[in-house]
């Protein structure tokens, strides 16, 4: 049977990885792409980090943000995770015939505000309009460049004994979107969508031995941590009771049949750091509003190489896999 692109290929899980590794990377083969970081590291007169991301979120306005803020934060955060200081963004818009101009204005104003917050400028762009029904209101692509200030961030730098930190509560964005989409539950839950440059800067200023940074967007915390350990000689052990979860997220996920470990985050980062620096780094993170709930959620071990495992609250132990396809609401 001929393979077709299904929504699973866009989930950020295993099918997305297959698309990238079996189709996209071989087609464009080069070392900068092959590294598969959040941003590509480029050499030239200046060392640059370069990244791009497209945004197709439905609904385009949601509690805590909108597609414009998301488009700026997404690319800015990818650059930060690569050790870069974000500088310039592009903005390409695909607009569906019939989109109210005031909605576009709102999205653009939100992009400007997010860019100001992140200290970047949107310096180039493109617009296309497609027939009604051949797009969904508005799609946004941003690409960004930043100066590489902190080279060497990479899962290969991780050592057994290292601490695994998360900058705050997990699953907020994905759950807020699912709630907004389902239209059936009222909640104050907001997306965590935010630029992380200032938090990263505060973290680097501590001089802590940071091995790797990654923002756990699509696929969530579990998928990102699986990528850290995959094919490597160490594993990561998470403590379920240490995972920072909002009550609303926990309850909504239980109702909707979702797992917060696989829900997208748009304003959080995961950090692996040398154990002796963990407390100092956490203290610095907690001094920033976007890192106030930062906490250590696990450790790097040699016990199960290549595996991500979870010590469950009742004391059991199990493996965590990458997300296999889009999370779906279930029967009961």
């Amino acid at each position, binding site marked *: 049977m001929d393979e077709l692109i*299904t929504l699973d290929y866009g989930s950020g899980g295993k099918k997305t990885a297959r698309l990238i590794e079996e189709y996209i990377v071989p087609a464009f083969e080069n070392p900068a792409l092959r590294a598969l970081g959040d941003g590509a590291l480029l050499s030239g007169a200046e060392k640059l980090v370069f990244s791009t991301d497209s945004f197709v979120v439905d609904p385009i306005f949601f509690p805590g943000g909108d597609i414009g803020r998301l488009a700026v934060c997404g690319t800015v955060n990818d650059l930060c995770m690569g050790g870069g200081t974000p500088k310039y963004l592009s903005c390409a818009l695909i607009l569906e015939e019939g989109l109210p101009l005031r909605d576009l204005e709102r999205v653009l104003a939100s992009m400007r505000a997010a860019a100001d917050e992140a200290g970047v400028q949107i310096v180039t762009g493109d617009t296309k309009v497609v027939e009604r029904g051949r797009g969904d209101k508005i799609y946004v692509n941003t690409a960004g460049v930043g100066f590489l200030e902190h080279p060497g961030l990479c899962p290969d730098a991780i050592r057994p004994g290292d601490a695994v930190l998360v900058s705050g509560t997990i699953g907020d964005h994905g759950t807020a979107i699912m709630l907004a989409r389902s239209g059936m539950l009222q909640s104050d839950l907001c997306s965590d969508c935010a630029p992380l440059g200032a938090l990263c800067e505060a973290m680097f200023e501590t001089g802590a031995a940071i091995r790797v940074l990654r923002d756990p967007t699509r696929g969530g915390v579990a998928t990102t941590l699986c990528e850290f350990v995959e094919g490597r000689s160490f594993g990561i052990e998470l403590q379920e009771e240490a995972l920072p979860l909002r009550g609303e997220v926990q309850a909504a996920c239980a109702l909707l049949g979702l797992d917060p470990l696989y829900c997208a985050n748009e304003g959080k980062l995961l950090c692996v750091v040398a154990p002796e620096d963990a407390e100092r780094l956490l203290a610095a993170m907690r001094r920033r509003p976007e890192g106030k709930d930062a906490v250590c959620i696990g450790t790097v071990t040699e016990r199960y190489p290549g595996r991500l495992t979870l010590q469950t609250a*009742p*004391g*059991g132990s*199990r493996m965590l896999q990458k997300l296999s396809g889009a999370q779906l609401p*279930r*029967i*009961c």
Partner: protein
Amino acid sequence: MHAEAAFWLEEIRKLPPLQARLMEVCGTHTMSIARAGLKTLLPPGVELLSGPGCPVCVTASEQIDAALTLAMEPRLILACYGDMLRVPGSVPGDSLQRRRAQGARVELVYSPLDAVGLAAKNPDKEVVFLGVGFETTAPGTAAAVLAAREQGVKNFSVWSMLKTVEPALRALLAQKDVSVQAFLCPGHVATIIGAEGFRFLPEEYGLPAVVGGFEPAEILRALYLLLRQLSEGRAALENAYPRAVRAQGNQLARAMLERCLRARRDCWRGLGEIENSGLGLREELAAFDAEKKFGVSTPSAKQTTACRCGDVICGRCRPGDCPLFGAKCTPEDPVGPCMVSSEGACAAAYQYQTV
């Protein structure tokens, strides 16, 4: 460790050692047990098996095939729960998700009432809701049919694949190759039919039966009660989920079920045809019955793969015993429904492998 879970675990460990195979017959139990890693905490000798408790998994592949065909009808919107989207029919790789990529209009809904709303919003289309589930979801499906009738939404219909638990458990216990010593009874189903709905297990089969909730501590409490009965050589019905389950269940929901649905012969994966195990729409609701409206037929399908979902559902084998498990059959490329349903035993075993 959660104090309550720790307490029940300790109680379990204090019981004299015994060999016991306990079966849960609810997909949510299956997932909760796997998610909390409870199997790694139980004493050796105590084995937990998954029974026919995942509604998607017990749906026969013939019915899935027929749903895939129906989805391709022009001017039709097939509405279903998210669980159904990736379930393969008799041909691996073929699913509603694939059909959607081929142009079928398949919409996910959280509630059957959403499907009625979808029909009202699309008067030029026919909306068919795939009614999958046990007694838990049957009243909601019935309510949707009544709502459609009341609101005059004529382009809405239900294809009922609804099933009831008791006939399946009786059919399971009639199988010679199935060995189970006690049942962890489904809290959700019992919320509707009442704890009394499982009294036949101790009284007619001499098997301990405990209705359990879904938090790890609630499951451990129910398992403790089952193991205590076994160690004392008793068989009784106990309700360990009193915060949700009453002896007689939910009268309103039962009346709704009675009013709209009638028992009929149905086909189960792994168990085959069972008398009075399915729920079809009553004759007076024929206008909302998709089977009648679209002349749906379920041609018999030959199994062409080595998939052992049928055996997994009956507790004849564990997910890992299937030759396809984790190799040819994964959540990304499922061959059988147990690997892809969010309540399936294979999905639980794969996704939440113990270490």
